């Protein structure tokens, strides 16, 4: 149920306390019948097309577990699904680190070195303050167009 229906302008506030409507989930059996052959296909492609043995074997075993779990024992299916999600998350985290960590050291590490050599500290950390005051005068707003900008 929509909380606020803009057509009727009705405020269905009681829906706030109710759980959001959940889309009907696909039946586990159907999911298993789609996922298991797809996984088996990928395993076959890796084995016959690229001559790999270990990874396709793991994928094939998992596809059997998905099928068996989906058809006969749902906790097994859910366990494989959770494992898959964890693996996916770890892949994203790892790729993030592999890409971003060297970027960080190269760009920011090098950048800091250059700024340091020039005697610049973007955070103005020199302590205690040398000046009489730490108030910084504010630039006057030249044009009201400034309010449309994100910077």
């Amino acid at each position: 149920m929509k909380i606020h229906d803009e057509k009727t302008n009705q405020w269905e506030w009681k829906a706030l306390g109710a759980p959001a409507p959940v889309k009907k989930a696909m039946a586990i059996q159907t999911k298993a019948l789609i996922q298991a052959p797809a996984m088996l296909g990928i395993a076959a492609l890796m084995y016959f097309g690229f001559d790999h043995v270990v990874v396709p074997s793991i994928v094939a075993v998992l596809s059997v577990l998905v099928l068996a779990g989906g058809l006969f024992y749902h906790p097994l299916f859910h366990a494989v699904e959770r494992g898959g999600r964890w693996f996916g998350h770890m892949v994203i985290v790892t790729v993030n680190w592999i890409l971003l960590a060297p970027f960080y050291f190269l760009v920011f590490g090098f950048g800091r070195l250059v700024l340091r050599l020039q005697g610049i500290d973007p955070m103005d950390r020199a302590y205690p303050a040398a000046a009489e005051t730490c108030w910084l005068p504010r630039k006057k707003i030249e044009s009201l167009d400034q309010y449309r900008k994100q910077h």
Partner: protein
Amino acid sequence: MNILGISAFYHDSAACLLKDGRIVAAAQEERFTRKKHDERFPMHAVRYCLHEAGLRGDQLDAVAFYDKPIEKFVRILKTYFSVAPQGLQSFMMAMPVWMREKLWIPLEIETALDACGIKMPQDALYFPEHHESHAASAFYPSPFDSAAVLTVDGVGEWSTTAIGHGRGHELDILFDIHFPHSLGLLYSAFTYFTGFKVNSGEYKLMGLAPYGQPTYVREIYDHLIDVKADGSFKLNMELFGYLDGLTMTNDKFSEAFGGPPRKAESEISQREMDLARSVQVVTEEVILKMANHVQALTGEKNLVMAGGVALNCVANGRLLREGPFDNIWIQPAAGDAGGALGAAQLVWHKVHQKPRTVVPSKDAMQGSFLGPNFDAEVEAYLEARGYPYRKLSEAEWAPEVARLVASENVIGLCQGRMEFGPRALGGRSIIGDARSEKMQSVMNLKIKYRESFRPFAPTCLEEDVSEYFELESESPYMLLVAQVRADRCIGQAEAASLPMRERINQKRSDIPAITHVDYSARVQTVNRERNPRYYDLIKAFKDQTGYGVIINTSFNVRGEPIVCTPEDAYRCFMRTEMDYLVLGDCLLSKTDQPEWQEKGDWREDFVLD
């Protein structure tokens, strides 16, 4: 002209709607989603605002977002340029969020509005600067034609503190202090160090301060902050962790302040109390200096304030007593939620050059009752649910509720429009008898499920304020702390020598439930114009007992947002040991209600703050 103000994506997201400059509605998203400090786009609050204003989705003229996201991003990049190769972990956490969400705010707003069925107005999206939004939220709704402006918080884009001048509809920020030098972050560092949660535990630190001695004030000045005569300051970043790490303080800070930070939920020792008191004293002293400076700059007798630090009501009380201003007005939603209001008002008054209409002694916040009102729907709701209730007539409502308060019952009160801002002001409050000796511990332990040291605040009739407190002015938004009148206090001389546990339980005045250990109280005054029903209730209580003052605490349990709907109120009522619930005209007694059945431990729904 209809202007929607939005604050979102950090903490306390909120929406506000101005119709030809008048504040029609404002609400925080957390109240609807039931997630405390919800930072997501305020879909529910936006929908509510449009509904309250009676607008269709194609009738918005402008949208104002409360800060400049790209400027903030530049500040974050510059931080990494100043700390690399340290800071990698913080970078790894921040970057994906920025890339995914925060760099595309116009798109995020358009998509979210679209999902609400609202058409984004063409070429009318505005981004005022964060502290300008705070300043606008302080000045424009204030009852002053002209005023000095002071905004203090953790950080916006670069500014952490700003001073300015408001005249008519003109508002200029004159000077500011830049990140990482921040009074708000100094206070948050101590919040973290004493084992409370940053961004929500600051209140607890303030409540803890009266139990301690200011023994660390010298250390704070020696090691942490260099304060100039004009109140400007710099922090010694060698001792803080928030630039290059994931914590507010670092090992050097621990060395300087007697050991590592307190672990959350562990026993609070005298050190934490002394630290709380010390940082509170330093904060007050810096604010006083800043206030003197902005007064000298502007020559004003009025001051307006906003920003998270403006919620420090102990400092506000001292500023009123010792500061150079005759009048002080503080935006009740002083934190970032209020930025939504300020941003919208800036667009109206500054971009569109619309004049202000100032009514002396009357601000434009309408008592901060800017949220939804469910009174008309309560009866139908209770009937549908089959919850037993008694409908009170207009004549019996106030005397009957007052009678229950006077009999030491704890009562949940959900009536009228919901408050905008962190304080419950009688619309969504839990009330009790301020004269009762057992009320503080009953309410803390059986109703709020929170730490026993935390004090409760009073609401009193505006005309009676000086009968109970050392305060002459009104305090409608519970943002001023004042001393309980000396002639009402008991045992002040002995109190200082007692250990903390005994001091908590000591009777300190004839209104012990709202008298804090230092004989102070966070006062709310109420008049008939702002909240007639709440006023009538306290007036009836006075007629029955001779006391025009009651306890008022927010209607929620620890970690839960304040209730919004009658449904939230009923749930909270049944989960706790409250005795009665007032929903609009309807009175519900706990003993009449069907047994409350709930699966699992409901307290797991809320993250402890």
